[in-house]
């Protein structure tokens, strides 16, 4: 343990890097396709059909097209910040994959501060959104950004606190430890309230409907990326979908027993669970109207945070009893 932890395997690092990049790209392509298919079928239509089998390469076409799109930099933007934002938003995304255990052994770096790494780097996402909106010098973008940030910070608290309930039970920040602690029973059964809260917060953190205020089309056009075109916009998109994967992976690890499951290999179970959670989040999106912004914020402060705190204290109390 000691030697392994204290050394860098360059091969491992590079392999992990390539793997993660491939995963990010493929995942985003797949998720967008899935989103379009899921939404379509909920709406009694087939969704992408003509580009590839059942539209299978639709998103590849989209990606290629975006690659060949002009990058417009409007005149009045705050140029350095405007250009940096799409890159900054991408940084935390990749880093988060460092510590996610896809299966027993498939983990790039099992850090003892695993959760904290993901959570703290999420702060960069917030910053990037603020940068994007601010630099665009567009009222819709500024508002989208401010809302997005306010929303992100409002839901980060209950998210952290719900995760804490689990951490309290496990006593470790290491993601593999958390999975290992669920060898008898998944935490979703022990901590149902925390799970529900987590899903709500995760939906909000990834700016998905019904909490997609920052991109609320009916008010703010396209939110903080209103002024971004082509590949820059694609990067925001990519980050958004990858973030979805990350929050779903966290949900899987914290509540659904990670890679555990009978018969199939761990990786498969892990992906099944992750995509099931993502399906759930998509399902929300295509069912609900959007909440109003003040309602969104107050929901967090008035309901979610008190509930999460209560849940934490009850957990602490119960832990004391047993």
């Amino acid at each position, binding site marked *: 343990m000691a030697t392994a932890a204290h050394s860098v395997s360059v091969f491992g690092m590079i392999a992990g890097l390539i793997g993660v990049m491939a995963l990010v790209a493929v995942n985003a392509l797949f998720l967008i396709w899935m989103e379009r298919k899921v939404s379509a079928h909920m709406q009694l239509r087939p969704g992408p059909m003509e580009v590839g089998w059942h539209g299978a390469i639709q998103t590849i076409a989209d990606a290629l097209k975006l690659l060949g799109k002009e990058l417009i930099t409007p005149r009045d933007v705050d140029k*350095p910040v405007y250009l940096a934002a799409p890159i900054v938003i991408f940084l935390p995304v990749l880093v988060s994959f460092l510590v996610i255990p896809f299966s027993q052994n498939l983990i790039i770096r099992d850090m*003892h501060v695993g959760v904290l*790494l993901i*959570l*703290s780097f999420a702060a*960069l996402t*917030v910053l990037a959104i*603020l940068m994007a909106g601010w630099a665009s010098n567009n009222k819709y973008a500024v508002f989208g950004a401010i809302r997005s940030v306010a929303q992100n910070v409002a839901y980060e608290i209950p998210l952290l606190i719900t995760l804490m309930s689990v951490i309290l039970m496990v*006593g470790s920040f290491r993601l593999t430890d958390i999975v290992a602690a669920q060898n008898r029973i998944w935490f979703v059964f022990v901590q149902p309230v925390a799970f529900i809260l987590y899903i709500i917060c995760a939906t909000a953190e990834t700016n998905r409907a019904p909490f997609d205020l920052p991109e609320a089309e009916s008010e703010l056009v396209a939110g903080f990326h209103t002024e971004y075109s082509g590949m820059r916009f694609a990067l925001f998109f990519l980050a958004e979908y990858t973030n979805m994967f990350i929050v779903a992976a966290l949900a899987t690890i914290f509540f659904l027993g990670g890679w555990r499951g009978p018969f199939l290999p761990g990786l498969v179970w892990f992906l099944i669970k992750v995509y099931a959670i993502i399906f759930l989040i998509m399902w929300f999106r295509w069912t609900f109207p959007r909440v109003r912004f003040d309602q969104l914020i107050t929901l967090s402060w008035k309901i979610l945070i008190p509930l999460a705190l209560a849940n934490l204290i009850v957990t602490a109390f119960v832990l004391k009893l047993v």
Partner: protein
Amino acid sequence: MSLLIATISFYLVVAATVVGAVIAVAARNIFHNVLGLALSLIGVAGLFLYLNSPFVALMQILIYVGAITIAICFAIMLSQPLYLPAPPRNPLKIQGAAFGAGLVFIFLGLLTRQTLWTPAAERVHDWSITTIGHYLLTQYVVIFELISLLLLVAMLGAIVTARGGRGGA
């Protein structure tokens, strides 16, 4: 080899810290100042890693970048009509500040150089987060509780002040 990578990374981190700090104090656009601060703080987090404390490093990012810079940004948007051109700078003041800061720099630099630091005689090598928690629950429990009190008071004060005091503006 290992040393090389570690050293390069170290200089990267130092560069981030210093460059960020320079932007933070020198850029004309206040928003760039904040971003510079964020960069600098991330650099400092990197330094903390070199100082063997990943926990504090991550918390540094979480708190400073995730919360304090955001609060500052909001305060800026609340108080600064940014579309107005920035007021001209006072060269005298800048020179004075540079001079003063330079003096302090020389003094502190010399101080650092001259002092002979002695390590503690006996050192424990337990860096785990649990220990920090344990200390917070036992030895520093007063601080721990005081912090919550401090935050409470600070928030009450902040809310009252920001909303323009009791009874209305």
